[in-house]
């Protein structure tokens, strides 16, 4: 879907679920995932529709993911770190273990 304009010079490794992804050290999480052709960052709370970044500047909230156990983070506003563990946004608004847990 997306191609990097410049080759990665300063390479690090991050995880999206069980998948190991190479990223540039100054990538945002959103850019790194898109460059790795990941197109579903999470699902909406009401209809379960797949979501991916729309604005890349912190406005649309469609790039929400869970990073190292912290839910509800905007992937476009977080810079990657070596070994970072990323998971899709649970999408129900109350966290994975919330009282309204995802079906």
């Amino acid at each position, binding site marked *: 879907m997306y191609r990097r304009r410049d080759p990665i010079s300063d390479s690090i490794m991050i995880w999206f679920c069980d998948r190991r992804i190479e990223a540039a050290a100054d990538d945002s999480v959103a850019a790194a995932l898109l460059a790795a052709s990941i197109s579903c960052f999470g699902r*909406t*709370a*009401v209809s379960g529709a797949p979501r991916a970044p729309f604005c890349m500047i912190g406005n649309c*909230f469609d790039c*929400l993911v869970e990073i190292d156990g912290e839910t*509800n983070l905007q992937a476009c506003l977080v810079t990657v770190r070596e070994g970072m563990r990323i998971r899709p946004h649970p999408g*129900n*608004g*109350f966290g994975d273990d919330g009282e*309204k847990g995802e079906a």
Partner: protein
Amino acid sequence: MNHLDIAVIGGGLLGSAFAYGLSTDGGRVGLIDEGDHAIRTARGNFGLVWVQGKGLGMPDYARWSLRSAYAWTPFSEELQAQTGTLVEYHRPGGFYVSIDDTEFADNVARLKQLRDEAGDEGYDYEVVERAALCEQLPGIGPDVPGATYCPHDGHANPLKLLRALQEAFRLNGGTYTPSSRVTTIRPVNGGGFEILCEGGREFGCEKLVIAAGHGSAELGKSLGMEIPIFPVQGQVVVTERAQMTMTYPTNYVRQTDDGNYLLGPSARDVGFNDETETTTLRDITRRCTTAFPHLRQLRIQRTWAALRIMTPDGFPVYLQSEAYPEAFSFSCHSGVTLAAVHATDVSRWVLDGHIPSQYRCFHPERFDVPA
């Protein structure tokens, strides 16, 4: 110069509703709007289509709001059929949730007084004590003593409403002109008006509707209309999207079709300041999480402030110029609730050339105190 049969000044919820309503009659209708720097009240709405509690001291306004609530279903269906845009209107009835006993007693007393004033033409409501309320609004906080319920209340997506109105207007053949703040309205000898805009555009028109929000006061003056309006700031908090748990809109919390909760709206008199500040946002969230504690688990995604158009008594100001009877001006703060009557009844008044006497109650002469 573009020549129009009817020019509507102001592309907010009022102006867009009039433009849409007027365009169904086949004339050349133009909607003249400002640019991005306008005070955009219509972009900040909470989205209630609300009757409950309105009209104390003016039963005509209670009836007017109720009339619009009734008109909203066919109105929203027609907009959807014409534009394909779903404005997300739902009318399950709404709750006015009180967070302490005093507030609950005051609220019940207010609705009773409204009913007494309006008689048989008043709107229905129920007093719902805590035990019954727990069934209908799951998750209410331990301090909530009860609520009042009005079956006519509902909510809609105000941004989609604005878009649908402007789209339907264009589909009807209307022309929308953005980035053209009107600077001068000049009556023409022999009838009609000339309109001059910033940026150089000029329009001629036979009839004129001023619906320019806070800009209406200044524009009205040039046609001898005194429009007493001032800004009252409202702040709104939006949470992240969550599963649908809230079936009913309430007076200060509602859940949108996308799952976001809207919290608010506040009311502050701070002139034309449209910035949010922490103490007001804290008061909003404190009140809303007292009523619905589970909201504390949600993240806030966005906050904003907008400037209501307020009149001295809070009721609409609808006015036809005496010096130039082809000019009308309409101002009010309930642009969402009244959109259905604005697009139908009020547009008809403009086409017919007069405001019916039963609606004289909305004339600003009511503010004139004899010396």
